[in-house]
């Protein structure tokens, strides 16, 4: 027990003695891993965004000229009750006229006595995203309905987005792996450097009869402390990054990055793991 407390104290004191090196380690780990953290956050957000955009295309249903707005509403409700349909928005003749005004700078009633634009509606499919093959039957079913003149949907675009998303995922995985590998080398080198600067201590401890384990533990304690501090620092920096990125995004889009605790917990675990592995490896090398 006394030995255990002594070893904990040793780890802590040796950190404190080597303030400069400790600070440097923590800063290095914190900064580099905050990039990983931010990357992971961005990826998880991006994946969400991509998934949304996958399901964000609309199927446009145009009704025949003589369909009234209320009839159209009824048909749309019918469509909405169908399997796999998430939501629908009705565009009345009046709304179509407003779109016309915006697009062509003319009031359609100034040009004609009657509004020739058809009533239409926009349909969105279920949240999780469907394969192109799964969309066909839905479209067929709507086309078969009464008073529906025409159904248009971006079949080609959907197939494209699918393949884009696969490509995107592998690119993101590649970048993350590269950064993580770079970080691993960095973290383990930093810790090795710290330990290397105390090879006198290791030699003398061994001379006075310390077991390998006794020599190792303070370094591992130190590795854990550095790792946790580095992890916390990188979380803080990631948080700052996200805030900055959000206030930046706000200028262009209503879309905001969402803070994901799982990413942070994973981050700290990864840092701690690397620190411990780094310490162990370094100690092992210097003990022989």
């Amino acid at each position, binding site marked *: 027990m006394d030995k255990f407390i002594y070893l904990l104290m040793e780890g802590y004191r040796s950190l404190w003695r080597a303030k400069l090196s400790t600070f440097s380690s923590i800063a290095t780990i914190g900064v580099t891993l905050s990039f990983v953290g931010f990357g992971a956050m961005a990826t998880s957000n991006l994946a969400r965004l991509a998934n949304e955009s996958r399901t964000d295309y609309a199927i446009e249903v145009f009704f025949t000229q003589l369909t009234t707005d209320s009839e159209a509403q009824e048909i749309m409700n019918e469509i909405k009750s169908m399997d796999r349909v998430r939501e629908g928005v009705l565009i009345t003749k009046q709304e179509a006229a407003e779109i016309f005004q915006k697009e062509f700078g003319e009031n359609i009633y100034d040009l004609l006595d009657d509004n020739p634009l058809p009533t239409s509606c926009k349909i969105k499919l279920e949240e999780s995203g469907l394969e192109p093959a799964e969309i066909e039957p839905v479209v067929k079913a709507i086309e078969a309905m009464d008073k529906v003149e025409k159904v248009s949907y971006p079949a080609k675009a959907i197939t494209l987005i699918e393949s884009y998303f696969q490509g995107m995922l592998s690119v993101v995985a590649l970048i993350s792996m590269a950064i993580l590998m770079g970080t691993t080398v960095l973290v383990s080198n930093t810790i090795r450097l710290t330990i290397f600067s105390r090879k006198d201590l290791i030699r003398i401890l061994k*001379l006075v*009869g310390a077991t390998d384990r006794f020599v190792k533990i303070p370094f591992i304690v130190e590795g854990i402390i550095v790792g946790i501090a580095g992890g916390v620092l990188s979380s803080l920096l990631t948080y700052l990054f996200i805030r900055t990125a959000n206030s930046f995004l706000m200028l262009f889009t209503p879309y905001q990055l969402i803070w994901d605790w799982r990413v942070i917990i994973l981050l700290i675990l990864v840092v701690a793991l690397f620190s411990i592995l780094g310490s162990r490896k370094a100690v092992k090398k210097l003990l022989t």
Partner: protein
Amino acid sequence: MIRFSNATFSFKGSAGVSDATFSVDEGEFICIIGPTGAGKTTLLRMIYMDAIPQEGSVEVAGFSSDKIRSKQIALLRRKVGMVFQDFELLDDRSVFENVALPLHVIGMSREDVHSKVDGVLDKLGLTEKSHNLPHQLSGGEQQIVSLARAIVKDPVVVLADEPTGNLDPAASFKILKLLEAIQESGTAVLMATHNYNLVKDRNYRFFEIIKGQVRASSG
């Protein structure tokens, strides 16, 4: 206690110790003399298994160099007190902490460490300097700290490599008397020294080592 059987440890191209055979019993006082570079330090390193013989074997306190493993070397060293020729003190720890190190290694409780270390520092006249760092000591004081660290754990063997090289005659004699007192309590003492004048009239067992060849000597 200690038994060398045709033990040889040589460096590439250099002598070291060759073909040494002798044994040392509990409570013996051995004085190792010989010119510079003869192999005195190497001989002592073989006893605390810092140098494992390339030929022959060394047996110390029940551990044999033939089959000793890393973990057991640590256990052996806990029984052996060593005064290093170059002191081997930790630069960034006080005298007290340096002397306490071997006690922490064996897991002694805080209070026991304190009373033990204070006792040894007092006996060696270092109490006043107990908070100094090694570089805040004179050469002789550092040497005495190294001795304090060696004897604080009540070892069964004390290996003292040139323990009086930085001490004046009076202080050297005091250290000698201290080592003799330790020996009388049953501990074996092996001391390597150049200071032949200091030891020549004393009743020790002498080993002379020249170019790695160890032989008994009348002193």
